């Protein structure tokens, strides 16, 4: 567990730095206290002196606070974790009676403000700057590790394979080929100059046309309702700004794409109120992790009791990480719920063209004949997932609400896209023939193949998973490999994957309530997927072996403790 060791070392270093800073401040403070103000202009000097002392005291307080709050977050052992899972899974309570092995605790995976606020010290950054850096550091640690040591089939077979980042790598060949065609290279004066900050008019028009067609809208969509920014995250960040004031909140059914927490927090300081879904199927829910209006109401009520002001509901459809596609009826219920409580609804349809199971029909919210509250329904789409071009930075908002569109436009300066890139996107989106006859059929075929391969493997390994037909991922259940079933063990399993140079996303990063779930991305090229699944299997085998040994030890201990009164300290038993 080299990563773990490194993490400890970094915690140690940070703590040292804090203590040194504290010592310096204390010394300065004493010097300041013992120095007499100079004679000239005693009044003013006195005042300055007093102010300096007060400033130092404030600094001292802050440093001490940092250290104190750093200790439980960074040091092993003191972390309170969520209770063990309560699912009906056969192993659910297997470890219930055992003490948690705290010494194996590592860093934090999910961000709560108190967790990361104080893990970075800098006198140059503002508090929110520190907060932003720390959150980024924690959220992208695995990603950055991967960037520094990527798997390559010839050059670096020992590098990391990333099945954690939801990035579509199945069709980059097709896209590179299309983008290399001659119609893409046009340059016009307008493309190199300031333009409409909502997006080039030609691109907004094309996006409206594109969505009209692929979302099967009852009427033509209006380009004036389209705002284009550089990516979904940017759209979400700006929306959080214009719909919520700091400290206000959005409801979000969980498990949910973790990037939201990031996008709402970094700039906008908007909170997320999770609507916890359960894997267990009950009378009220027909399938695992089903979202019901009842749950939405409970969560909303809970938030109100806690004094949180909820301004909207975020829905991802097709869902990430579950892969669920909402039926028209369910979607209508959610929208009616939102209308009833005067909430905005943000519908993220980033994966709308990534529904690869032909038996499933995706219904865009834009296809509805009449929306319950059109002025509060805002749809997000982008090309990162459906077109394998996450590096292109394109995201679009469609909203009937002109006030929201205007307010969003103010962010055009900060989230703008190169005119040249906008031109290429237009060319891409308008090539309906290529999309329908070349791209989508190949893309869906490759998704099916990859999905089939992965699910086949998972079945062989007896790993339960949600078998859905959309998205780039499967949501898998590894509870049986956790003993006890806690988030701590989930994190350890995650690190075991990392030790084997495999990145998966643990459920906690999706705000999943139950430990033991992981999201596995399968939208990578076949050779990579095969190597990844070999590593995956190896980890599970190791984990299982370790469990057996542990169970055996436990059984032995029990034997020892029950037999102890009669034969104390039997050397034979101890040896095993």
């Amino acid at each position, binding site marked *: 567990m080299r990563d773990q060791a490194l993490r400890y070392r970094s915690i140690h270093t940070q703590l040292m730095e804090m203590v040194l800073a504290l010592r310096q401040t204390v010394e300065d403070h004493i010097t300041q206290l013992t120095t007499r103000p100079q004679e000239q202009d005693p009044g003013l000097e006195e005042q300055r002196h007093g102010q300096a002392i007060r400033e130092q005291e404030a600094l001292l307080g802050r440093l001490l606070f940092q250290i104190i709050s750093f200790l439980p977050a960074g040091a092993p052992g003191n972390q309170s974790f969520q209770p063990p899972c309560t699912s009906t899974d056969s192993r659910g309570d297997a470890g219930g009676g055992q003490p948690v092995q705290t010494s194996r605790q590592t860093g934090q995976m999910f961000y709560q403000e108190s967790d990361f606020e104080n893990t970075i010290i800098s006198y*140059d950054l503002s508090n929110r*700057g520190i907060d932003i850096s720390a959150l980024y550091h924690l959220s992208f640690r695995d990603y950055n590790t991967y960037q520094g040591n990527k798997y390559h089939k010839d050059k670096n077979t020992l590098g990391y394979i990333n099945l954690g980042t939801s990035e579509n790598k199945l069709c980059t060949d097709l896209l590179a080929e299309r983008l290399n065609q001659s119609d893409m290279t046009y340059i016009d*004066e307008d493309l190199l100059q300031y333009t409409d900050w909502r997006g080039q008019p030609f691109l907004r028009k094309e996006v409206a046309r594109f969505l009209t067609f692929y979302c099967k809208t009852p009427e033509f969509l209006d380009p004036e309702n389209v705002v284009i920014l*550089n990516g979904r995250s940017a759209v979400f960040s700006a929306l959080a700004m214009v719909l919520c*004031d700091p400290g206000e909140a959005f409801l979000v059914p969980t498990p949910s794409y973790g990037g939201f927490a990031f996008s709402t927090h970094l700039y906008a300081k908007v909170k997320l109120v999770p609507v916890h879904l359960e894997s267990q199927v009950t009378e009220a829910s027909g399938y695992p992790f089903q979202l019901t209006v009842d749950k939405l109401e409970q969560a909303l009520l809970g938030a109100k009791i806690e004094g949180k002001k909820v301004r909207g509901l975020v829905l991802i459809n097709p869902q990430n990480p579950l892969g669920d596609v909402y039926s028209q009826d369910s979607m209508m219920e959610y929208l009616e719920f939102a209308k009833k409580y005067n909430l905005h609804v943000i519908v993220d349809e980033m994966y709308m063209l990534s529904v690869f199971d032909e038996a499933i029909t995706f219904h865009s919210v834009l296809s509805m004949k009449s929306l319950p509250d059109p002025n509060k329904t805002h749809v997000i789409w982008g090309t990162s997932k459906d077109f394998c071009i996450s590096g292109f930075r394109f995201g679009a908002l469609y909203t009937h609400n002109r006030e*929201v569109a205007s307010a969003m436009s103010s962010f055009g300066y900060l989230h703008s896209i*190169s005119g*040249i890139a906008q031109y290429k996107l237009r060319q891409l989106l308008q090539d309906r023939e290529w999309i329908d006859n070349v791209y989508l059929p190949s893309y869906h075929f490759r998704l099916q193949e990859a999905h089939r391969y992965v699910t086949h493997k998972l079945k062989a390994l007896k790993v339960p998973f949600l078998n859905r037909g959309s998205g780039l991922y499967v949501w898998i259940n590894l509870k049986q490999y956790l003993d006890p079933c806690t988030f701590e063990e989930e994190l350890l399993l995650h690190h075991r994957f990392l030790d084997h140079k495999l990145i998966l996303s643990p459920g906690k990063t999706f705000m999943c309530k139950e430990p033991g779930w992981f999201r596995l991305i399968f939208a990578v090229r076949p050779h990579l997927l095969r190597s990844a699944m070999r590593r995956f299997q190896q980890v599970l085998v190791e984990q299982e072996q370790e469990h057996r040994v542990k169970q055996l030890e436990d059984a032995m201990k029990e034997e020892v403790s029950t037999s102890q009164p009669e034969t104390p300290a039997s050397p034979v038993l101890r040896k095993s």
Partner: protein
Amino acid sequence: MSTLPQKESRMTTACPGSDSIQGLPGNKGDGLERECSRKPDQKPLKFYGVGDPTAMFCSSSPYLSSRGSVIKWFWDSAEEGYMTYHMDEYDEDKNPSGIINLGTSENKLCFDLLSRRLSQSDMLQVEPSLLQYPDWRGHLFLREEVARFLSFYCRSPAPLKPENVVVLNGSASLFSALATVLCEAEEAFLIPAPYYGAITQHVYLYGNVRLVYVYLDSEVTGLETRPFQLTVEKLEMALQGANSEGVKVKGLILINPQNPLGDVYSPAELQEYLEFAKRHELHVMVDEVYMLSVFEESVGYRSVLSLERLPDPQRTHVMWATSKDFGMSGLRFGTLYTENQDVATAVTSLCRYHGLSGLTQYQMAQLLRDRDWINQVYLPENHARLKAAHTYVSEDLRALGIPFVSRGAGFFIWVDLRKYLPEATFEEEVLLWRRFLENKVLLSFGKAFECKEPGWFRLVFSDKTHRLRLGMQRVRQVLEGQPQVAEDAPPCQIQEPRGPHK
């Protein structure tokens, strides 16, 4: 926009100064100035102002958060001139009576060179890796190229390092990110005014950071040698003023070459400003977005990165972008250079929201690498064209007897139209601006730059000859139809201190 707020500029009484004005370049009018400076001025001078971007905001929306309503109002109000222009853009063939834009600071002189260069085959490569999530700091190949490029063109004493470079989609984003990571909400940056007004929104939108204006004067007093000169004394007074109001100042923004003044700071001046910042533990953001647009060789521009020793390197952050120097405002490429790794990392944390396409990053690297083309084709031609356009406009202004400030850098001339205002108010300034717009020429008025004296306009000259000619003709028409306050005054004469008007 018609009632311009005064409440945001809190008045401070100062030692009496004089209202003198620098006339045409090279035309000193020394005697008159000295004479004038002996006359005590009763009018209190403003040293600084604490900006309140929301001062004019009134209506809120039921659909938006309170900050969302303010943000929407920004869009609705700030874009007035730009919107009018977009609905009626001049086109030689299709809309010859459309509006000529001499308001937006864009270089439209070199599109032919750029389009040829960007169409060359080395620009067209599409690597799959360029289509994927990047290193959020910017692709390494680009950061390396930026470091080499800045080392060369900023003449840095030691080679600059790629790890100190962060790449984003334009300098607007960079202001936003820096404001957020260096300040808490409601804290402030100092900025000498007049300044490029869009910065107000860049630092406010996400960051909720204010600007404290360090007011510069058109009249030359004391030890100053030129109009609107920034001095450490002015910085000190503005800082003190802000502190006395309880406004916490975290940094200083310097634009060099300056926009809208076209002014260039000497190395000695830069050093003084940086020492001032160091004394007060302020960050300094140096925006050098016009560094290669110095078309007058005698100016001798020096980047802050060329200084042998920075007083406080950990708090000095340099910004550059291709929008001005390469005439590609639509390309959206900006970069930060800072030795402070905490700041670089914190800005990178926000780059997820300010990323630029991998293909664009590739093209930028190709462009910046092509030193031959830049040095032998692009820069000489660009400078020659800028200089010709500048000469044309400045001669036109001289013929009209209009004073202006310009030092051979940037795309604009800072024009003194005070004598065309019946009253020295910002209301009159806007009225004159509207008259220009009605006559189909868009200029920028001084209030947009937080200039404290009404009557100054920024006129952008980096446009094609035929448009420039027509634009200047329309400017002339308006001014000729406008009664002058002092009609018989020669161009560089000293105006009386703003007193009762006729």
